């Protein structure tokens, strides 16, 4: 087929094609995901003359992404759609595709593979980045949305014991709020011990715990933490949604 002959030349003969279903050919090219799986690219002739081609992934990219990441929030959808739009890739029921002509097939294929890589890496928004940025995001939120309550960062309620630290103190009222972020089991244990210490020291306070995500804690850690804290937000998203109103109620009363 002329289309494939031309493409082979453009790829320096390093590609081949496998007819997976009638008229749908899988491109076998040295373009791989990090784990060694080949990036799924399919070619389909869209006219009788063989001049126009649809490059698609047959929905494989979103299937692969769903192993560990779901596009299940408006924000994630926005990012997903922006990547597609910026790169002139269309989507239909999960199938990502570009319609092109035989003359621009090679650059369109290279571009398509790059977009697949970008979509595949959306999982990084959840895992590495968001987990490691939890405290930075918490700080950013507090310093923008809760600034009017004059938060004090890194506060030591028992001055002679700096090992008991709270992430933020809001002391614009006689009974201050101690805010602690928790993104791991060890942070949960530390928050539990700290709250108990403050109680033992007869400090008048109200504790607010922001969990990065409730799923990251074991039942026992969660039970211990909930028994000593006054208020918990089960996720950072929940805190972003409801935290401001909570502080309005607490600190303006």
């Amino acid at each position, binding site marked *: 087929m002329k289309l494939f002959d031309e493409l082979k030349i453009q790829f320096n003969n390093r590609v081949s094609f496998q007819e997976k279903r009638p008229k749908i050919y899988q491109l076998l090219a040295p373009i791989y995901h990090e784990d*060694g799986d080949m990036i799924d690219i399919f070619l389909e002739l869209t006219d009788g003359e063989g001049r126009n081609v649809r490059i698609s992934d047959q929905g494989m990219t979103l299937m692969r992404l769903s192993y560990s990441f779901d596009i299940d929030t408006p924000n994630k959808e926005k990012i997903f759609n922006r990547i597609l739009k910026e790169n002139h890739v269309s989507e239909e029921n999960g199938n990502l595709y570009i319609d092109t002509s035989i003359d621009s097939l090679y650059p369109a294929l290279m571009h398509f593979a790059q977009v697949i890589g970008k979509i595949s890496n959306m999982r990084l928004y959840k895992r590495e980045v968001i*987990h490691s940025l939890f405290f930075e995001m918490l700080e950013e939120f507090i310093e923008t949305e809760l600034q009017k309550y004059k938060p004090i960062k890194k506060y030591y309620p028992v001055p002679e014991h700096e090992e008991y630290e709270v992430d933020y103190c809001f002391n614009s009222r006689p009974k201050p709020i101690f805010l602690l972020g928790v993104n791991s089991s060890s942070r949960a244990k530390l928050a539990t011990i700290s709250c108990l210490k403050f109680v033992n020291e007869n400090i008048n306070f109200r504790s607010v715990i922001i969990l990065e995500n409730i799923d*990251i804690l074991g039942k026992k850690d969660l039970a211990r933490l909930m028994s000593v804290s006054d208020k918990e937000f089960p996720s950072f998203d929940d805190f972003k949604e409801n935290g401001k109103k909570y502080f309005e109620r607490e600190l303006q009363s």
Partner: protein
Amino acid sequence: MDYTEAYIESLIKCRKAIVEPPTKEMKLEKKHKRNDMKLKSLDMDDQFYVFMRIHIDFQENFSIGLLHQSLEGPKNILLRFNGNHGQVVEDPIKPNPHFGYHIHKTTSDDLNNGFFEPKLIVSTSEYASFKEALKYFFNFVNITDAYKHFRHIFKKKLFNNEII
């Protein structure tokens, strides 16, 4: 924490029970069907997740994976049982492609470097369909009560109730 091969193996092989069961039927989502479940180790505090995906048009393209959630760290994919979806290579820089059903397994190097995708690839002839892969997977990762939720892939022997 520093991962070792022995620790990874212990995570894969520890006895597990289903705490959040899969749905009876796989759910259609875009161009694939999916099911998921949550497991609890019977030997340690750790939790595990299993994902099951199969493409609706290309049924040879499926994946069954085991994720580990420690109390401290992020979720990591320990294993992925894949169908025969196309070429696969051990080293994308020096590719020596091969086809076939294969298993991706994470290594201590992967996890200690923070790599999410399991890079070790082992070809397998233990399964040649999604159903066979499920059964092999459940036994491989030691899910003790999988037969309760996947009766269609486990059979009982007629006379001694043994599950095979």
